[in-house]
């Protein structure tokens, strides 16, 4: 992550997984560090259990709110099939962080199409640096599957220049009082997964 260039982070997942809170926190942190920030996502129909993405770009000056295919520094996916779907957004040096979790889409469940059997292999072939972590499982172990997003954020924080305090501060500011502790625990668990 260089201070002179913009950083592009694409987040993907399934509607309802907490992608939006993740990207809100990260964008706010970047803004508080004095960087220009843009993030883009889509609400409405697309959210109802469909594939969702959030584009985050920060750096000295950001024009487009969208990340182009082949230019993402990081792809953070909350679900493995969604990682495969957006793999081509990664730049040749880009880093993939994905949950091991798989949620079968309806066309697969009702037998119209089959799941690809070689997801891990395809990831290895296409991405030089990939981390497949058990964020959902860890969140469940902490007692709340909804903090999966903070486990993922903790894992990603290993690659970014922001201090742990800035993340903790953003969590405290954006999360309801009674959920702060578990979110911070989830974040710290994520830090240890990479």
């Amino acid at each position, binding site marked *: 992550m260089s201070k002179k260039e913009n950083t592009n982070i694409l987040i993907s997942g399934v509607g309802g997984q907490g992608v939006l809170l993740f990207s809100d926190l990260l964008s706010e942190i970047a803004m508080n560090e004095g960087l220009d920030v843009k993030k883009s996502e889509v609400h409405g129909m697309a*959210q109802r259990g469909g594939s969702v993405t959030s584009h985050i770009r920060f750096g000295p000056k950001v024009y487009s709110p969208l990340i182009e295919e082949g230019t993402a520094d990081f792809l953070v996916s909350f679900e493995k099939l969604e990682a495969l779907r957006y793999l081509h957004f990664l730049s040749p040096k880009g880093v993939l962080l994905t949950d091991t979790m798989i949620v079968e889409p309806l066309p697969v469940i009702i037998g119209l199409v089959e799941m690809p059997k070689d997801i891990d292999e395809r990831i290895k072939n296409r991405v030089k640096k990939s981390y497949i972590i058990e964020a959902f499982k860890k969140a469940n172990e902490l007692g709340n599957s909804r903090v999966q997003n903070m486990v993922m954020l903790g894992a990603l924080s290993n690659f970014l220049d922001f201090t742990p305090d800035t993340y903790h501060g953003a969590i405290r500011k954006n999360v309801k009082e009674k959920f702060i502790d578990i979110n911070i625990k989830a974040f710290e668990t994520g830090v240890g997964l990479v």
Partner: protein
Amino acid sequence: MPKALLSGDEAIARGAYEAGCKVATAYPGTPSTEILENMTQYREIYSEWSTNEKVAFEVAMGACLAGARSLVAMKHVGLNVAADPLFSSAYIGVKGGFVIISADDPGLHSSQNEQDNRFYGLFAKIPVLCPSDSQESKDFVKLAFDISEQFDIPVIVRITTRIAHSKSVVNLEDRVEHPVKGYEKVKEKSILLPQYARLRHHSLEERLQKLAEYSVSTPINRFEPGKKTIGVIADGVAYQYAREIFPKASFLKLGMVHPFPKNLVASFGRQVKNLYVIEEVDPFLEMQIKALGLEVLGKDALPRVDELNPRIVQNALTEKKVEVKPESGVPARPPLLCPGCPHTGLFYALQRQNIIIGGDIGCYTLAALAPHNTMDTCICMGASITFAHGVEKALGDQDKRKKVAVIGDSTFFHMGIPGLVNVTYNQGHTVTIVVDNRTTGMTGHQDHPGTGKTLLGAETKALDIAQIAKACGIEKVYTVDPYKIKETKTLVRKVLAEEGPAVIISSRPCALKVGKNPPKKVLAEKCNGCKLCMNLGCTAIEIKDDKAVINDAFCVGCGMCVEVCAREAIV
């Protein structure tokens, strides 16, 4: 100056607040919904969810004519609903500033079309501003109030999904109060009888002339110097994409696209060697640039369909083409009805019936997809009931299949009622099913006239759909709980067999609004893998090793699958 990371929608609400806006109205619609949702934090502003966009427009216009700064927000197709008062409002003009937000959806992320509402400015003779990020969204709303009062005309601020739902850094300022001027009758202005309206048309043309001069001098239409080999004219988010691809070019950034700043464009066009116009969807600017006799490259290279992005601009207008291949064979993940969605029970009951079903706009439109396949159309708000009636009148005895309409509760209040009145009046026999989940679901749970709550959280009278249906002249009105699958199926089939017209209200609150019950379980020894339960299209049920399995993480314990299973294998 304090800063905040705001979406375009949030920035518009903030802009209205800072500008001293007093009344704000809307009907929810992606990507505009969050404007009014965010307005409620500013208690100086009276905000309401109106019944539909036409109602919202006229309420805000009434407030404006009473001398209050007022704002109405809607998605692009909402402005079609409000087009009637839109045209009149240009003639009448304003007393307090009047701003109309049109949130367009290039790329159809959550819409039925990609119409380009910049044309409404040209058509209705109303100025149009197009911001390029959240800061401009806030600034342009404030400017729009000033322009509105200075030129005695409403002003459209047109955003797109990528402006509405992208967050960027915004500087926050204080609110400046604009006291409500008070109502005064000005019959020559506000009564559009032909003798007055003709004069107002003359006045409108004069106001537009002055606005055309303003458009040339306003700082939001600005020249950004660069190399003269390439000159780019762009507006909205397309400006940002163009900036990524042509960092060194000369730019004419247009913030006010109607009236079109002719002299400014002509002088810019003469200064550069190659002139490009980069805009989303239709060639709105391009048409007007070409009318000046300038040579310009735009839609001959750039697509008219779908939204743009920097890569599309790069591949269309530069030599450096880039193509990145996605992974093949990745199963699609379309949006779908949530586990426990009460609509599921109703659509299960409609499966494999020999009927014609007019659909409408809402979450339930997703029942058009497998495994339900229970919808023939999705046209626009309210068009289910009227479509079914038209089909019936055309076919008569030629096709005896029952004509059915399925419409949501919020959509029924929005535009369903006139259609239902029409069925009674014109002796129709259609069956109208109101899927009543007690909220506006698809846009994220907004209240409506049936919920008993206003946008500002006040308790209010909840309108009863069954009573409305009866008042519309429908004698056979039934209510059923769609979680009771067998009962729903029996009722639906009975009504389909009877002489119409009839109304069925499928009533049960949205599953996302109520808590989860403990998840259901499949008794593996009883399950024979018949897949009957898969017809619910519930993502919490999968087939593994020829047996149904329920995923605890998604199951909300609604119990519909328990009733569907013929072998009592789900408990």
